[in-house]
């Protein structure tokens, strides 16, 4: 017969053993991911350097910022992105507003993602009464109108940007938790998790080393989707007077203040809207690339 331990040759006969470049190095090699990084860098730089990038004050209502009839100015050489209803420079407001929106989009969204993932993973892996309790609570949160909850929470605490971020996080984690729960419970049924248990792996090890990496694609998708939702939720809250207080600018409240004049002054909605879109897209592009890079079965593609 055949020699007992002759290797079972792979059908395709390819067995390359090549060293893997670091995640960062592989990330910057992808043009789309690079585009995402550039957009985020621009937004970050704009937010940090806002006072030096513009000669205007974000809250100053300028005389020459309005037409003689009192209408806002479209983009021109003086006001690059035009002015708003009160004659304030839109570009300046957007630069300063980027600070608020980045904090909301990243911090609030990140915290929401963190809570949602922890709740979902715990409930999905342990099931039993812990799982039931956590998921019933999640359902309760889902059934409760998010806006009402946000208003209640914001009324209790002294309004500030960070409180708003926390309020948004507390409202937004539920969807993530639901999705992560479903995925975790199907992952927990997979055979390699049983295999881990037979070699004596502890629950935390299984959760962090073997389940979490598989959830990464889902977390990334929800994370990027959450950016635009949270930025807009902040605007809703500030519109209701419980978010960031006027005249402080945020991308969301620029849209909200001006949306009724959309037909007369479309730039007032278009530019901040495009900014939110670009930010979400940038994170999405990076997320997509990260997902492929971190998934060993996708190696060698694209």
């Amino acid at each position, binding site marked *: *017969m*055949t020699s*007992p*331990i*002759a*290797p*079972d*040759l*792979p*059908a395709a006969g390819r*067995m390359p*053993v090549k*060293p893997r470049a670091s995640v960062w190095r592989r990330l910057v090699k992808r043009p789309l991911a690079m585009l995402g990084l550039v957009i985020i860098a621009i937004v970050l730089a704009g937010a940090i350097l806002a006072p030096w990038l513009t000669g205007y004050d974000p809250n100053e209502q300028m005389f020459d910022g309005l037409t003689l009839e009192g209408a806002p100015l479209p983009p021109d050489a003086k006001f690059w992105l035009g002015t708003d209803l009160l004659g304030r420079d839109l570009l300046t407001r957007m630069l300063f507003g980027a600070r608020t929106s980045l904090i909301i989009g990243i911090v609030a969204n990140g915290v929401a993602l963190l809570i949602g993932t922890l709740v979902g993973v715990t409930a999905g892996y342990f099931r039993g009464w812990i799982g039931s309790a956590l998921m019933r609570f999640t359902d309760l949160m889902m059934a409760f109108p998010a806006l009402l909850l946000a208003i209640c929470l914001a009324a209790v605490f002294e309004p500030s940007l960070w409180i708003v971020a926390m309020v948004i996080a507390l409202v937004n984690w539920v969807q993530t938790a639901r999705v992560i729960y479903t995925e975790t419970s199907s992952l927990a049924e*997979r*055979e*390699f998790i*049983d*295999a*881990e*248990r*037979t*070699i*004596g*792996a*502890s629950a935390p*090890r299984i959760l962090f*080393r*073997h389940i979490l*990496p*598989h959830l990464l694609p889902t977390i990334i998708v929800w994370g990027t989707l959450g950016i635009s939702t949270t930025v807009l939720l902040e605007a809703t809250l500030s519109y209701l007077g419980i978010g960031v207080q006027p005249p402080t600018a945020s991308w969301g409240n620029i849209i909200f203040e001006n949306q009724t004049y959309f037909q007369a002054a479309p730039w007032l909605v278009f530019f901040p809207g495009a900014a939110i879109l670009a930010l979400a897209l940038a994170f999405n592009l990076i997320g997509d690339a990260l997902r492929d890079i*971190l*998934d*060993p*079965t996708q*190696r*060698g*593609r694209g």
Partner: protein
Amino acid sequence: MNAGAANRPAGAAAPVDSIAARPVLDIAGLCVSVRGEDGEREVVSDLSFKLARGETLCIAGESGSGKSMTALAIMQLLPQPAGRISSGTIRLGETNLATLNERQMQRIRGARIAMIFQEPMTSLNPVLSIGRQLTESIEAHTDLSQSQAQRRAVEALKAVRISEAESRLKQFPHELSGGMRQRVMIAMALALEPDVLIADEPTTALDVTVQGEVLELLRDLQREHGTSVILITHDMGVVAEMADRVIVMRHGRMVEEGAATDIFALPQAEYTRELLAAVPRIGTGAGRQESRDAAEASKPANVADVDDLHVRFDLRGGFFGRINRRVHAVEGVSFSIAPNETLALVGESGCGKSTTAKALAGLVPYQGDIAIGGRNLSGLGRAARKAVRRDVQMIFQDPYASLDPRMRVGDLVAEPLLIHGIASKEERRERVAALFERVGLSADQMELYPHEFSGGQRQRICIARALALRPRLIIADESVSALDVSVQARVLDLLKELQREFGVAYLFISHDMAVVENISDRVAVMYLGQIVEMGTRDQVFSNPRHPYTKRLIEAVPVPDPTRRRERFARLDREIPSSTRRIGETPPRLALTDVGGGHLVAV
């Protein structure tokens, strides 16, 4: 006896002098290519064959041989958009199927060529009743009214020997057993009396006794209707049982073609010879090792003692979701395994063999006593139990599913050592490298991921992982069932070698009697959660006492067309369910010694 079959010796091609001499299906120069990551790859190359009326042609080959792709190409069901027929013709009568568009092809599929798949559960729609699915295809292809179609459906079900056909029409796929579902699939395929039936591994997912039944059914129906059958299978036993003619494929090419008797008696190609040599056979098969008798094998200190093991799962139901039924998966199983011994646990799906393994590996809660190396697990604290568990490791059926696809294989093999805090980082690396070498892989493959290996190599990785902790007992749960026969033989050899070298004991769980006969020292046969027969391999195989054991052994298809059976061992009834109402316990079987430690239930 059926005279028609008797004077149609296997192999002699269908009657040449009749009109039927014109082939039903004529495939010439067929090439199929699939576009993948690294460009287009040919999966079937230059394949030509003819299928005569009423003939059974078996396409045999291992995974990746292109046999399923051939079937899908005939049906024009190649994976879209990657797969395509790059050249060649597929003639069904006068029409070249390769040139038809989707609309024209829909009229052919089902009506003139039908196909049945491996997994009957996934190929039936779970939310439609059997009757609805049967009549749907009949109505789509004929002008019959609904009630006529209904009648036709009942006839089709009767033809595949399904009892109470009328009431079955209202049932849903999950209410039927696996064998029943496959029979429904056959009924659907044959309801329109197609010229050609393509069966892609139709019995691979079924238990042996059910397999025999389905094969027999296929054979009878073919005789009655004169359907030509293309049977695709990796199982040479099934080939021998069914084929008139055989095509052996490898890497997309035809290696050998010929009458079944010739292929088995005088294989021409080297590959065919290897393939046949690797097939495990009951009796005088390759690689059979001497059976050690019970007295020698059971030394005083057993590796594992299982006493009166029970595993039950509660089912909730009713309005308040109370526990009202219970699955008695394992009922009072007792056995022990000595060092250096292989105990095989055999039985069909649902008999509780895998659940027993899981209880032993600590994956399901159980009642009863399990002692590993003399220490009873139930009396131990967490830390002590973890330490004892080190001595029991498991190799699962599907090596791909049981390896975390996001980890490097080197890390996976090192993980047990890491978890139990054995050895420093450097030593771990060395030990893992040594393990890799020992199981026939090279140490520089440690950096790769599981998907970069073939099935057999992955199972070697699982073996290395199980060996890392130097366990005293390795549970192999259907560990070679998913592998191709040639790979299977090599993995079995490896397991035997490792046993000699490390003195590890195996609990070898399998449904494949031929494999079991090759590797085991002792055999326990399970049925409905209980052991019905247990003894040394020779006792069980040469002198099976329990009727169920006899049936299991008889049902295994023999890879020899000259020993083809006219009638398969048949189940007189479906295997009953092991689910019972609360408070109801199944009757306990008492095992009696019929001599030499050969235990049989009476």
